[in-house]
């Protein structure tokens, strides 16, 4: 295999990997404040992209994307308020099943609104034939957009959780809900915030990747599985490790194409998920004690 080809695989690997990473981070944000896995996370990406695609003919692209993100954030908040907020101390299992239901609901709604057609947002810069050459490999500028946006999301989130009032309050809720409430934090509101936040970053990532992978109403589930695998691989709740794990899975997938038939691409992530769940349920980077530290 030539170096250029390897590099091409590498780039396509970290591109999809960075999207898995964002999905995984979305899982973690909600997991950290609630202890649940939100299986509608993949739908947030598709929904954001679909809204962006619909608005883009009428608006400048940045504005269409911003509106798509805002709308998805609002829907994220509504989902939490309508389906979860009013439950009195629900069991984790019950909420997870609710999120699965919600994911089906969103998917069906998207099918009605946008039918089965495969759509795509237009390229942020250039067209589908433009390319930049890096180390002899020709890549779409959109790849750089995806990587850049993912990096910015991750950096901003880090900043948000470390240096802002609400970010810290969300961490406090995940560290110890009882004590957080003692400090005057409305833990229920933090749960709503966490849904808004992960809906927002999901929508942004969905828009960024849409020109490359295209968007269809039912693509959320497979994204959710990849993102979930990344979240588990990194150790649930650990967002930085999830980013690394997302990239690893993306790379594995990309390179698997060179040895396995294309049809097995999705199987790679699922096989990996099963292996981790069997042998290292606390994740590659997580330690058993640390996951035991979490109180829910």
């Amino acid at each position, binding site marked *: 295999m030539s170096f250029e080809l390897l590099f091409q695989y590498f780039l396509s690997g970290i591109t999809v990997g960075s999207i898995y990473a964002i999905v995984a981070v979305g899982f973690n944000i909600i997991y950290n404040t609630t202890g649940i896995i939100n299986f509608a996370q993949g739908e947030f990406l598709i929904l954001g992209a679909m809204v962006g695609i619909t608005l883009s003919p009428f608006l400048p692209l940045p504005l269409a994307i911003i509106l798509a993100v805002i709308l998805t954030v609002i829907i994220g908040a509504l989902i939490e308020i309508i389906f979860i907020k009013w439950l009195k101390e629900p069991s984790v299992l019950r909420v997870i099943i609710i999120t699965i239901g919600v994911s089906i609901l969103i998917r069906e709604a998207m099918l009605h609104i946008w039918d089965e057609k495969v759509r795509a947002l237009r390229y942020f810069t250039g067209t589908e034939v433009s390319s930049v050459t890096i180390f002899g490999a020709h890549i779409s500028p959109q790849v750089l957009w995806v990587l850049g946006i993912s990096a910015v999301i991750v950096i901003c989130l880090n900043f948000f959780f470390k*240096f*802002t*009032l*609400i970010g*810290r*309050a969300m*961490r*406090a809720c995940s*560290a*110890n809900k*009882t*004590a*957080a*409430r*003692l*400090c*005057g*934090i*409305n*833990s229920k509101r933090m749960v709503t*915030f966490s849904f*808004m936040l992960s809906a927002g970053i999901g929508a942004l990532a969905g828009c960024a990747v849409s020109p490359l992978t295209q968007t269809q109403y039912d693509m959320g589930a497979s994204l959710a599985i990849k993102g979930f695998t990344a979240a588990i691989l990194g150790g649930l709740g650990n967002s930085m490790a999830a980013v690394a794990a997302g990239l690893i899975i993306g790379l594995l997938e990309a390179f698997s194409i060179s040895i396995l038939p294309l049809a097995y691409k999705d199987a790679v992530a699922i096989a990996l998920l099963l292996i981790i769940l069997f042998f290292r349920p606390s994740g590659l980077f997580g330690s058993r004690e640390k996951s035991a*530290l979490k109180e829910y």
Partner: protein
Amino acid sequence: MKELLLEIKRLDRFFGGLQAVRDVSFSVLKGMVKAIIGPNGAGKTTLFNLISGYLKPHSGSIIFREQSITGCKPHRIAELGISRTFQTTKLFLQMTVLENVMVGRHTKTNSEFLSALLNLPRTWREEKQIKEKAVEILEILSLTDIKDEYAANLSFGQQRWVEFARALALEPELLLLDEPAAGLNIYETQEIADLILKIREWGITILLVEHDISMVMDISDEIIVLNYGQKFAEGKPEDIQKNPEVITIYLGEDNA
């Protein structure tokens, strides 16, 4: 005449068939240290949980600053000015000492998501103020040296102090302390007692649950004795000390 800060009226709380708090009434005047003592399982922590909103009473009422807080949510009660520490410390273990104390100032800030986002300069200013205040509190409690340590890495005694710092960051009017000296040695207990008296000098009223009787006698203005969820006696430390029935409850029948 001293001002009434907290009034508990005929409070009842059951756990299944067990009545953990039974018809308890008392009041706390502004500026005093009031202690609640009683044997294990007497209902002291339950009483604290009722006052701070973690449990709802089955009947009775809790009035704070002439306003009923019966059945209010914990975060609402914190906003109104009641803070507490827990029998087993509940710090944010994955956060630094400074961050723990900063979270304690949550009620003193504007935490609306949208307005925080729309007015970034003010949000940023506020963030700075929170930090300054937290640093100041840590200085007063001589915790500056450990301010960047993760709470999980602290010793038991240090965690206690950080929990105090976090509770004080809320600038409460009433501070509930659940066994602040539990697990501490004589020297550390004395330090905590001194701290409690210092806090009272700042004008913060204190309601204290404590098993260390000598400490309670030293620092409290009034004492309530609970037994099987009921108020058994109430009075000044000297009177409680002299009450033969209290001695019986506390030391058990055979020692009396």
